[in-house]
């Protein structure tokens, strides 16, 4: 149980009915690592990410977060999830709540903060993503980029050990992508451990400490961005990179 590793994944398999989507994943994520998961669609990147907070149930294998086995029987799933933040491709903001309301809901229900504490914390988070002035706006009044930043604030408000990003910019118009990536970069610079599924190579180059290349449910390569971009070892990696760069 390495204390250096925030996340350990051991021999993770995932089947959807008869289809094996993850074929024995082994992976460690150290504290403050920013890991980008790359690969063609259908490779299993999102599935892997969602297994980490058990939104998808692993079929077999073990996952450890900060030394605790989260795939064990009888663990408090809700507690675990409150310590792992997730940002979704389609934001999934709660439309009936304001931006601030989105941030404070879980603070009050899960962390049992009182209304004032929750509001203060929520405002601080919105401030961090630069949207304090939109605290009382409803999601439909915000642009896509703003919505996603609120979603990041919502996840950050829970003070997570780890942040998971599932294609955070794929649903955004091009001109709005920058503001979200900037937010993610500043988060990385502050030392947050992040696992990001993305196609944004610029971000990967700039902010990632590690790149993981997935294809057909298997990790092909796992090393630094420089290594992978300049000298990829696996032929399929070369193929994939040539297509998107």
């Amino acid at each position, binding site marked *: 149980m390495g204390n250096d590793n925030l996340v350990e994944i051991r021999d993770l398999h995932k089947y959807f009915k008869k289809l094996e989507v993850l074929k024995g994943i082994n992976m460690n994520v150290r504290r403050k690592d920013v890991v980008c998961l790359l690969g063609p669609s259908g490779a299993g990147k999102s599935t892997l990410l969602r297994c980490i*907070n058990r*939104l998808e149930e692993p079929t077999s294998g073990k996952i450890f977060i900060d030394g605790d086995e989260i795939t064990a029987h009888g663990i408090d799933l*809700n*507690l*675990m*999830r*409150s*310590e*792992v*933040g*997730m940002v*979704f491709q*389609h934001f*999934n*903001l*709660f*439309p*009936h709540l304001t931006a601030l309301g989105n941030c404070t*809901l*879980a603070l009050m*229900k*899960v962390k049992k903060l009182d209304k004032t504490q929750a509001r203060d914390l929520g405002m601080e988070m919105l401030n961090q993503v630069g949207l304090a002035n939109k605290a009382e706006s409803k999601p439909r009044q915000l642009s896509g980029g703003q919505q996603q930043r609120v*979603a990041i604030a*919502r*996840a950050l408000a*829970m003070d997570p050990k780890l942040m998971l990003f599932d294609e955070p910019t794929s649903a955004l118009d091009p001109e709005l992508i920058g503001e979200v990536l900037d937010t993610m970069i500043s988060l990385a610079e502050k030392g947050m451990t992040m696992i990001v599924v993305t196609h944004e190579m610029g971000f990967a180059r700039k902010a990632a400490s590690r790149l993981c290349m997935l294809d057909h449910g298997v990790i092909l390569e796992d090393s630094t961005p420089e290594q992978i971009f300049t000298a990829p070892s696996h032929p399929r990696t070369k193929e994939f990179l040539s297509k998107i760069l």
Partner: protein
Amino acid sequence: MEAIIYNFFNIEVLLRARYLLWLGLQVTLKLAFLSLLLAILAGLLLAVLRHLNNPVLNVLIIIYVDLFRALPTIVLFMLVYFTWPYFGISLPRYWSAVVALMINGAAYFEEIFRAGIESIDRGQTEAARALGLNFTQTMFSVILPQAVKVVLPPATSNSLELIKTTVLASVIALPELMRQAQQAHGSLASPTPLIAAALIYLVLLWPLVRLTSYLEKTYGK
């Protein structure tokens, strides 16, 4: 014309029947209110339970819902009132009516709430769970508040139907409005009480009819 007024709108008869009609109205209102409340709560409970996705529970709920939407309510009234005593459950008329209306109503409300819950994007549940909210918190703080808008038109329409169905209690001789009107009609040999009852129902329910139309137009498909 005079015949119509004499027979249908006879003031004298109306005055003599007014107490009976008033009693009937009270019973109808109590029955409607209580049954509606219970049916909505039961339907909501069933819909939430169904969302747990437990296969055994789901089969039971589906059987219940299909059965009681297929069985005519009037038959249900009679089954509850006339046959349950054989099982040792002898409910007085009022409670038989409440039970029958609740059983029938809950089946319809379950379907309405279920459609509402299922219309909410799965991503909402995922985001809530990812934050650490449990099933109940997710249901009541995230899903149901959003489902209300979707559910309002059919729920109002169904509530209207349930209130209209209270009239069936007359077949098990519960002294609700129409039964009292029939009694008055019998003893006073004039159809005026019947017309009066019809008009009272009209006054009571017409606003709901208009409300339903408005809601369906505003929030409808």
